[in-house]
């Protein structure tokens, strides 16, 4: 079979490249208006111009700053609260119902409140990203800790472990695979929320380019920003997944 000899990532490129070709051909033949769908070449030229003028680096920098801070805050708070609720039945009884209730509020619905409280600038955007990151990390960590094998916990009991030692030496390491899944989910939501926050009012960042492209009727800028968002999201997820694989390399699982 021929397909056996072609690497999978090459196969994965086949359909996108084909679509790009059709797109470019259609644009070149004037089948679609450039005001609606600019040609791939125009998008690439726009990207090149943005790179040359420094606009690209500046926009990615602004967005990545919000993303990084929001992710750190959200994941940090989720780790502390998730660890607490996972380890202590009392903390879980006190805090988990409230956190679950807050989760039912669609996260974007917080925006007006954050703007009122924190202003239109960085703080409200970073907080929104943090809220988006928080829930997947928290939920995965709590369920990861709750689902730790009773048989491993008994090993801690026969060694006379305190609750804290049990948490640090058995529950947290055992919950690590679930935690990594939560971090990746949180990262995905974080990108979603940083785009939303920037669309709702920013003077820089990739989301601002999206909004600006729309306001000024330049779809090539919108497409360029979309491409950059996708690229940033994919790269950070890939890096997190690779780091996660290192952390849980002890797992005895089938290779994908």
């Amino acid at each position: 079979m021929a397909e056996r000899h072609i690497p999978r990532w090459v196969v994965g490129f086949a359909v996108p490249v084909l679509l790009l070709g059709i797109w470019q051909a259609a644009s070149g033949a004037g089948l679609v208006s450039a005001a609606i769908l600019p040609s791939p070449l125009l998008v690439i030229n726009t990207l090149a111009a943005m790179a040359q003028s420094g606009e690209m680096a500046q926009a990615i920098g602004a967005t990545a700053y919000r993303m990084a801070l929001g992710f750190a805050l959200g994941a940090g708070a989720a780790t502390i609260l998730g660890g607490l609720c996972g380890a202590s039945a009392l903390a879980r009884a006190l805090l988990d119902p409230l956190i679950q209730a807050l989760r039912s509020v669609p996260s974007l619905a917080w925006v007006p409140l954050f703007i009122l409280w924190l202003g239109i600038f960085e703080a409200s955007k970073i907080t929104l990203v943090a809220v988006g990151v928080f829930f997947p990390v928290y939920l995965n960590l709590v369920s990861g800790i709750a689902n730790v094998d009773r048989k491993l916990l008994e090993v801690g009991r026969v060694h006379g472990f305190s609750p804290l030692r049990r948490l640090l030496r058995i529950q947290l390491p055992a919950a690590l695979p679930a935690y990594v899944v939560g971090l990746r989910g949180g990262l995905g939501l974080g990108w979603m929320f940083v785009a939303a926050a920037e669309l709702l009012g920013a003077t820089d960042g990739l989301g601002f380019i999206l909004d600006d492209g729309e306001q000024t009727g330049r779809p090539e800028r919108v497409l360029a920003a979309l491409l950059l968002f996708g690229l940033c999201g994919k790269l950070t997820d890939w890096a997190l997944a690779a780091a996660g694989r290192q952390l849980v390399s002890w797992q005895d699982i089938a290779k994908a």
Partner: protein
Amino acid sequence: MPYPLHIEGLEKAFASQLVLGPINLGLEAGAITAIIGRSGSGKTTLLRCLGGLEESSAGTITIGDGKVTARDIGYVFQEPRLMPWLSVAKNAGFGLADLPKPARAQAIAEALEVVGLSDAGALLPKQLSGGMAQRVALARALAPHPKLILLDEPFSALDPFTREQMQDHLLHLHAYYGATMVLITHDMDEALALAHRVIVLDGPPGRIIGDFSPDLPHPADRTSVPFFNWKRRLTDLFSHRRREPERADAG
């Protein structure tokens, strides 16, 4: 010094259903005692009560002078129950967190040597065979130098060849560490080959129906006539099950 063990009027009920007891039993310090019985005879429950994994419903358990810490008791489960994220050496030292680092490293090296895994310290549990993993579990229980070691059918999941090897290992490390050992097993050969005393449980509720001190050498010659006679005696006990505890002193 190994610990003696005294059990008085021990009972365990689950949801008001008595599964074990009353059990009265005194075990000599430094000996290997095997507790044998069928499934459901309460032998694992008895061991879990001794190890503090179950609260007894009635009665008292006195281990040594009564001032026992977790480090004085080693527990080996039916499965290795290793922490999959820790190396063999770190698993072996799992109960040694209170020790300063040099003493810990020494205790780990010693325990791994006794179970014959000196070269495997850096491996992860997923790289081990069943027998190796159970030897790491033995090392983990032994490393703190406990005065009482509780073993819950530790070799039952292993193939017969590995099982006999492990039984030899157990005798070797009993000689080395000199702890009191309580071994739960459903394997009469294992009980007779290893133990100085064999307690027979039957139930439910689990009660002692036999208490023997076979005067067999250790390791026992499993093909010898005395070994065979003892095995016959234990088998007979099950086939015409008697309620009254039987006491015997000759083989």
